[in-house]
């Protein structure tokens, strides 16, 4: 009797252990499946983000790099069709690209959902509130603005303009030209006591190898009316143009008017601190609807 009882008890215990094993195995399998599904969802979100980001970046033709206390804007100017592209691209993504399990949003700098077609062409450096912007998406003109209160935040600006459809047609680059390259009118130079001043370094290069570097590099930007203006003569086969470079006056620090010249510009702002961040044109958010998985980053 005792022997049978022990066998029975042992058998029941073994059964319980086996059932617990099965239960544990099933739970683990379900957990693994769920993890794999989440990994796949995360991959889908990341691939979608990268796919859209590439198109947006190609449209903006603008690369922003922050390093220490400097921020650089590598920018192709002017552009063609961005406004129409942005409007249609946002619609196309909503109508044809999104799936029931994938949601795509374009976010404004404050994180709210926005229509890509209404995107303002302004990039802001915060908290100094320095604005790098164009009047419109044609990108024929480029401005840098900063309030008087924050004017000391920018210690220096380096601007390099690489011209791809014209050549520099002023002296000394072209000795036979009628104008000098450096002819600021008005010409507001700074002194050591100038309260609002900007060290500005300009380099212009053309596709023929012509190269010009500005001699004067300190400007008074605290006056009123027009800033210091230099119209740099350039020429291509169809005619003569000029690139207007205006330094000052606050709140406008820089105004580059390209007219018909096609350029790649590199604008580097040196700040008095590395404690700043950039409000990019837009942030892109892709979300796997059925999972708690998304990616939000500047586009």
């Amino acid at each position, binding site marked *: 009797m005792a022997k*049978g009882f022990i066998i029975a008890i042992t058998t029941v215990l073994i059964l319980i252990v086996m059932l617990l094993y099965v239960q544990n195995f099933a739970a683990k399998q379900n957990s693994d499946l769920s993890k794999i599904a989440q990994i796949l969802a995360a991959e*889908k979100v990341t*691939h979608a983000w990268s796919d859209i980001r*590439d198109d947006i970046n190609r449209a903006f033709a603008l690369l922003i790099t922050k390093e220490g206390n400097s921020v650089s804007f590598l920018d192709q100017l002017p552009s063609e069709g961005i406004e129409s592209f942005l409007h*249609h691209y946002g*619609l*196309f993504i909503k109508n044809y690209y999104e799936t029931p399990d994938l949601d795509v949003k374009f976010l404004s700098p404050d994180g709210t959902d926005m229509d890509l077609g209404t995107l303002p062409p302004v990039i802001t450096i915060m908290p100094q509130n320095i604005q790098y912007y164009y009047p419109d998406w044609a990108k024929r003109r480029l401005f840098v603005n900063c309030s008087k209160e924050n004017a000391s935040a920018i210690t220096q600006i380096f601007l390099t303009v690489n011209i791809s459809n014209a050549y520099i047609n002023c002296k000394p680059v072209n000795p036979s030209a009628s104008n000098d390259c450096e002819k600021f009118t008005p010409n507001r130079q700074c002194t050591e006591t100038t309260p609002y001043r900007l060290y500005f370094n300009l380099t212009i290069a053309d596709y023929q190898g012509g190269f010009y570097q500005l001699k004067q590099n300190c400007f008074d930007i605290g006056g009123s009316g027009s800033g210091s203006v230099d119209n740099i003569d350039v020429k291509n086969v169809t005619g003569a143009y000029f690139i207007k470079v205006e330094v000052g006056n606050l709140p406008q620090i820089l105004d580059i008017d390209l007219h018909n010249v096609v350029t790649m510009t590199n604008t580097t702002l040196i700040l008095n601190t590395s404690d700043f961040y950039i409000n990019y044109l837009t942030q892109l958010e892709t979300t796997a609807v059925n999972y708690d998985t998304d990616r939000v980053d500047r586009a």
Partner: protein
Amino acid sequence: MKKAFIFTLDALFAVSILAVFFVVYSFEMNVPKETYWLPEIGNTFMTSLDKNGTFYQIFSQSDGDAKAMLSSYLDKLPRNVNADLAVNISHGSGDIFTRTRSFHVTRGALSGTQETHIKRVFANIQNADFGLAELVISYG
């Protein structure tokens, strides 16, 4: 009585072992492990074509040339994978998109089950032309 009790327990034990094996086996068989690789294969394939500018080239190609180019890429997929790659190009005007081109290339026949769908978007910015490439892959 005692004998019958032990026989019953033995039978119960045997049935339990069978049940355990059955549960483990059915889990193993029902989890389509290979399917996990399909999204990986498809995403890698489509991302490669997107990043190296292959899709963008379609804007300047005839349908015939584009199909030949995409077919040559489909041939590079693993041999046990079948695929259908559809490309639709639409022109945007106002809030309306008009489909201007549409074609697809295939390799093998899709299984109809355990298929993976992957999309990529590409655009010709100046012309407001928008392309959508949709890949469906399955094991052959």
